[in-house]
């Protein structure tokens, strides 16, 4: 089976400070979850995958191509799209402009109309607020725009960094049901979440990151039953 994303012995960090040590990950299809406590290096790993920070050594293979040395915007062009931690919206732009920026790439522009209909069907609330400035939205609404913008980019792999951060329990459930829905549509995804129980229960495979190293991996169900995971993350 061909894998969408394969990371081999990745070492990365910020300047001289190494954060990730020899991390290897494979996502072949469906949803892959990465869990780990605060500061474990999850966001750093996603930044290395998307090209926001350079890698020190190791390789990142996407769709059979080595993207380790490619700049972030080229990776986006290839279909590696992230809904980043903290949303990173274009604050002074309207909701609609944010969605248009999501579809900035040629590939995504061609499917603009179709994808716009799709995101409005997922988030009907957004269609009522298309002219509002992104920075004036509530936190939950901003998260919806961030997810919608990611979908507008027509991703080949969609990477989520803590999509439920700061959301109410009700909205969290809503976001998870959307992720499940996307999974059924066949979009490959990489998910980093604080909500370990929810994410493991929808993940096909999962990895546990601790202090920048991979410590466990397995299917979502296996990890959910794993005593170490239970103790460290599920408070059982």
């Amino acid at each position: 089976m061909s894998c969408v994303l394969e990371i081999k012995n990745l070492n990365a960090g910020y300047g001289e400070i190494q954060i990730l040590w020899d991390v290897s990950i494979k996502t072949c299809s469906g949803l892959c979850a990465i869990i780990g406590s605060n500061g474990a290096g999850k966001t750093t790993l996603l930044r290395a995958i998307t090209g926001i920070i350079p890698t020190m050594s190791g390789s990142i293979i996407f769709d059979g191509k080595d993207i380790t040395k490619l700049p972030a915007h080229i990776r986006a062009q290839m279909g590696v799209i992230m809904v980043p931690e903290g949303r990173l919206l274009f604050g002074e732009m309207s909701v609609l402009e944010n969605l248009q920026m999501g579809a900035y790439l040629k590939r995504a522009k061609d499917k603009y109309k179709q994808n716009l209909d799709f995101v409005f069907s997922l988030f009907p609330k957004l269609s009522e607020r298309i002219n509002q400035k992104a920075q004036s939205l509530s936190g939950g609404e901003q998260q919806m725009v961030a997810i919608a913008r990611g979908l507008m980019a027509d991703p080949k792999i969609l990477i989520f960094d803590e999509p439920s951060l700061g959301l109410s329990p009700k909205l969290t459930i809503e976001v998870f049901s959307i992720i499940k829905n996307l999974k059924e549509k066949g979009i490959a995804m990489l998910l980093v979440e604080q909500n370990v129980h929810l994410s493991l229960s929808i993940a096909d495979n999962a990895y546990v990151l601790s202090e920048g190293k991979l410590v466990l991996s397995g299917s979502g169900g296996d990890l959910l039953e794993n005593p170490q995971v239970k103790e460290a993350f599920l408070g059982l």
Partner: protein
Amino acid sequence: MLAYVNAVISGILIGLAYAIAALGLNLIWGVMKVINLSHGAFIAFGMFAAYMSVKLLGVSVYTSLIPIFVAGLIVGIVAFFVSLYRVLNAPELTTLLSTYSLSLILIGLGTFFFTTNPRAIDTHLGSITLGYSSISYSRIIVGLISLFLAGTLYLFLFKTSLGKAIRAVSQNPTAAKLYGINTTLVLSISFGIGVAFASVSGALIASLFPFTILSGGVYELKSFVICVLGGLGSPAGAILGGLILGLLENLLSLKMPVDYMPFIEFSILVIILLIKPNGILGRR
């Protein structure tokens, strides 16, 4: 009374030309958070480019604006890669020093070739009489061209794909990268546009007043005052600031020697920074 009417009209027209230089400075600040200390050198570049076009090629100063804009754009992009690209992520002082050294080099070269003798461009256009006050045609043309440039910049930034990419990079460079925007390219083009605006405003000002290779500094100071007055990062603020400065300058010159203007401008700068550091229309 008539003198005042005349000063108001003149002030608005020249204020628009100042606003063009300030818009360039503002764009560069807004997109890459760099204070371009070479802005004055590029204003002087525009002045002398216009002067040479009129003197050597015999074209009208207004025709020369188009090649000057294009030259400014290209020179700006090259200058970005030479002096800014590698230090963009360094502490702010580094970009100040690097644009300042660029300015020293350009002004040094300019002094070598042109000396510091004053020059002037005569447009031979005469003036129009409105009631009892008279306004020179060249001022009216400068005002209209400036207005056109400001409007075009607005349409470019808000209606075109590249313009939207520039705004996206200024609002969130990381997100811009994540969604496929080549931020390095966008930054270089923005710097190019900023320099092109400086050059064109220099050419416009040169069509009205005498100048030397060192005059750029005077107008660079005006650009700073305008940006701080209107609000750094706010394009509408730059226009408003330009109008206020143009008006003030022309009205005050009725009561005091023009030599006092830099003093007044510095005072405005300091006062605004003290009481309203974000300017009139600035973002918080």
